[in-house]
């Protein structure tokens, strides 16, 4: 986005922005607490031996001493509320337990795996926005053919399932043309196909929303005003209309981050890629409860951060919002 799209605040405006961040962080902590609580009680309701769930799932064979130690640590012989208290205490101290499927502490598993997932999510988000903006700026309200072509392409892109697209990309560009490696290890080449698999459907979706608001913006009198100053069509679009048009897309981006992480589960499995998605898949299939809780909490945090960022970005683009919030 060009610098003209953002309005950086100063002085009083900065203070109010800080206030807004503080409120969001506070709300985020509450959401996190709620998420942890729901996870805790949901697991209490699932059938099975809680000791075995912690110690290695249905196939584990722990010694009696280990079982006794675990019952003590988790307070499993004490009232539910105490167990809940101990659970929160462990979370706050960062002790998420040991993942038996990965044979190491949950915290270190998460630390290793979050990087690739964030990298994939971020690159997919950037590419999705880039594709959406090119399509929208290039084809909205041009000649009839170009506009229809643009919106048709967006509709098709938005309706592609991401896992299906991943398989097609894999078949064509990795196995067929051999342009990219089929297994996505480190490096840029490995990132291309998974990114496109996630980004193309999202781009179609963002473009549809942005196109509609760009059309509305282009009908506004201030656009005519800008043209009467001698601005070119492209300058009018980039400097005036675009800023109004990206607002709904920014709001949706927070939601899109959540959806991207969800879809990363499939894409990471398909491309044999490191990441939270693949770990979550393994944790769930092997009933690795500590790791499942850990991944859930991390995804919640990512989602909270993303929606806070989207909120701040929105205010930077549309400073009128700030004036309306107290």
């Amino acid at each position: 986005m060009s610098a003209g799209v953002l309005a950086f605040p100063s002085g009083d405006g900065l203070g109010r922005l800080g206030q807004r961040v503080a409120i969001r962080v506070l709300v985020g902590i509450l959401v996190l607490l709620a998420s942890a609580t729901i996870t805790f009680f949901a697991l209490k309701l699932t059938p099975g031996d809680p000791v075995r769930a912690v110690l290695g799932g249905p196939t584990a064979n722990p010694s009696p001493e280990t079982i006794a130690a675990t019952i003590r640590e988790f307070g499993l012989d004490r009232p539910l509320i105490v167990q809940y208290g101990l659970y929160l205490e462990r979370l706050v101290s960062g002790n998420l337990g040991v993942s038996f499927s990965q044979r190491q502490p949950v915290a270190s598993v998460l630390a290793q795996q979050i990087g690739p997932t964030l990298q994939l999510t971020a690159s997919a988000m950037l590419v999705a926005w880039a594709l959406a903006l090119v399509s929208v700026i290039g084809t909205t309200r041009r000649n009839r053919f170009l506009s229809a072509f643009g919106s048709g392409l967006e509709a098709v892109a938005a309706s592609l399932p991401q896992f299906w697209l991943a398989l097609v990309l894999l078949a064509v560009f990795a196995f067929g043309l051999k342009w990219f490696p089929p297994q996505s290890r480190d490096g840029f080449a490995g990132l291309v196909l998974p990114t496109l698999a996630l980004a193309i459907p999202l781009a179609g979706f963002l473009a549809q929303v942005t196109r509609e608001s760009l059309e509305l913006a282009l009908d506004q009198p201030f656009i005519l005003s800008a043209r009467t100053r001698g601005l070119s069509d492209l300058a009018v679009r980039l400097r005036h209309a675009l800023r109004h048009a990206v607002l709904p897309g920014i709001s949706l981006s927070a939601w899109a981050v959540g959806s991207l992480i969800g879809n990363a589960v499939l894409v990471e499995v398909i491309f044999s890629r490191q990441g939270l998605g693949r770990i979550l898949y393994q944790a769930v299939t092997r009933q690795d409860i500590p790791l499942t809780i850990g991944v859930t909490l991390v995804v919640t945090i990512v989602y909270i951060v993303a929606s806070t960022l989207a909120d701040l970005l929105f205010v930077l683009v549309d400073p009128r919002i700030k004036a309306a919030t107290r």
Partner: protein
Amino acid sequence: MSGQSLIVEDLSVTLGNGASRRRVVRDISFTVEPGKAVALVGESGSGKSVTARTLVGLAGAGAGVSATRLQFGETDLRGLTDRQWRGLRGKDIGFILQDALVSLDPLRPVGDELIEALSAHGWGNRETRRQRMLELLDLVGIPEPQLRARQRPDQLSGGLRQRALIATALALDPAIVIADEPTTALDTTVQAQILKVLQAVKQRGKGLLIISHDLAVVSQIADHVVVMHQGDVVEQGPTEQVLGRPRHAYTRLLLGSVPGARRHKARIASKDQTPIVLEASNLSKTYAGPDRSDRRVVDDVSFTLRSGQTLGIVGESGSGKTTAARIALGLVGPDRGEVTFDGSRWNAAGKNAVSERARRPQRPHFGVIYQDPLSSFDPRWNVGRILSDALDAGGLPRSQHAARVASLLERVRLPAEYAGRWPLQLSGGQRQRIAIARAIASNPKVIVCDEPVSALDVSVQKQVLDLLRELQDELGVSYLFISHDLGVIREISDEVLVMLDGRVVERGATEDLFINPQHEFTRRLLASAPHLPQPNAGAHATDFNTSIV
């Protein structure tokens, strides 16, 4: 760059495509000379705005433009490429639109818009542009330019942002300035300030082309008037000739429709003794402002509305007239004071507050008409359903709806087949008639009219005001009539309240107040309202094209 004329000869413009393609401007000619102001006047749809846009090459995609001569200075404007037009726009011909709140980018500080006007033509460098921007704000009379440059249109008052918009058009000192309805939707005192700014532009040797439907404004500034009607020029000449001794019937119709230009028909004096319907005593309402400081929007306002009478509330935007009306309608509770309807408590503050459940049986006695009826209609409902819905609320059995809808349409002088039309298919005047039909559907005793004619052309305004008056005589309904337009208020009201900053500064019988205003603000309001030179021919104007609009 001053000293160049804009010459238009036999200009025609066609718009639309396929079967709907039609000529919206037909063979019009005029010349804008340096230091002179030409006014294009006419109602909406007369082709005046299209003409203005054509002169900067922005008539729109697919517009067909032809002329025997279209010349700016030495430049032939016919067949310019898009790039050549861009070089001309802003630099040689400046353009001002109405309503700076939406004609300036609402997300950007006004200073940035000004700087853009300069940089679009590569003028100066970063430092000199900033300097020039501040000069321009100063030139159009904006105090504290340093501060204002950083503010967005919504942070500026109507007058200041309209000046900022004018400044963007003047940025590169263009020889010709085109202003499309530059004072429409502004309060009269602000209107007077803007006219002064435009007057100064003219005195600096610019050629000014003003597009307006407001003849009073035109008479203040134009040297030459071109009257347009459905794409044709019906009359043109020096201002005093066209407005003082109009030759064409359409010009006379326009002049005769200007509110306040008509002689106020003396209302029947005996009406004074009709019973009181609505009485408001000592209403106050405070809202928290954006900076958390409290703002008293309505401050100790009292009034009485008698049966079959009209109480006009006049004031500038932000004076509290709409809030007062909402309290009267029982939509907003006051902080202090109370409203009684037919002698019983209707809306009150604190522990006397009336619950909506208690109010609901009385709701059919109230009707409302807004400035923009379109936004108060569901666009997916046709006229029949809109009216039928209002009848439902009034408790009329379904079986009688069709007959009642037809009679309502007849009351507002629309043919019965309009029940099948959609709001978007109707003209502004027709929509307002539907809004009136909806307001009278439940046989109300009180109708609150909030700027009901402000968005309408003068001749349509006259028709709607006439209709409102006729309905009052037929139905005996009372109006609480809000407007910023003194002419309209004078025309319709029996009594007038003048509001300023939430307080009533003056009240009285309409003619007394207009002839002999007591408060200084009322006098200023009256003085700033543009007046027409007394027309000589207004009386015989009604025979021309008075189809329902």
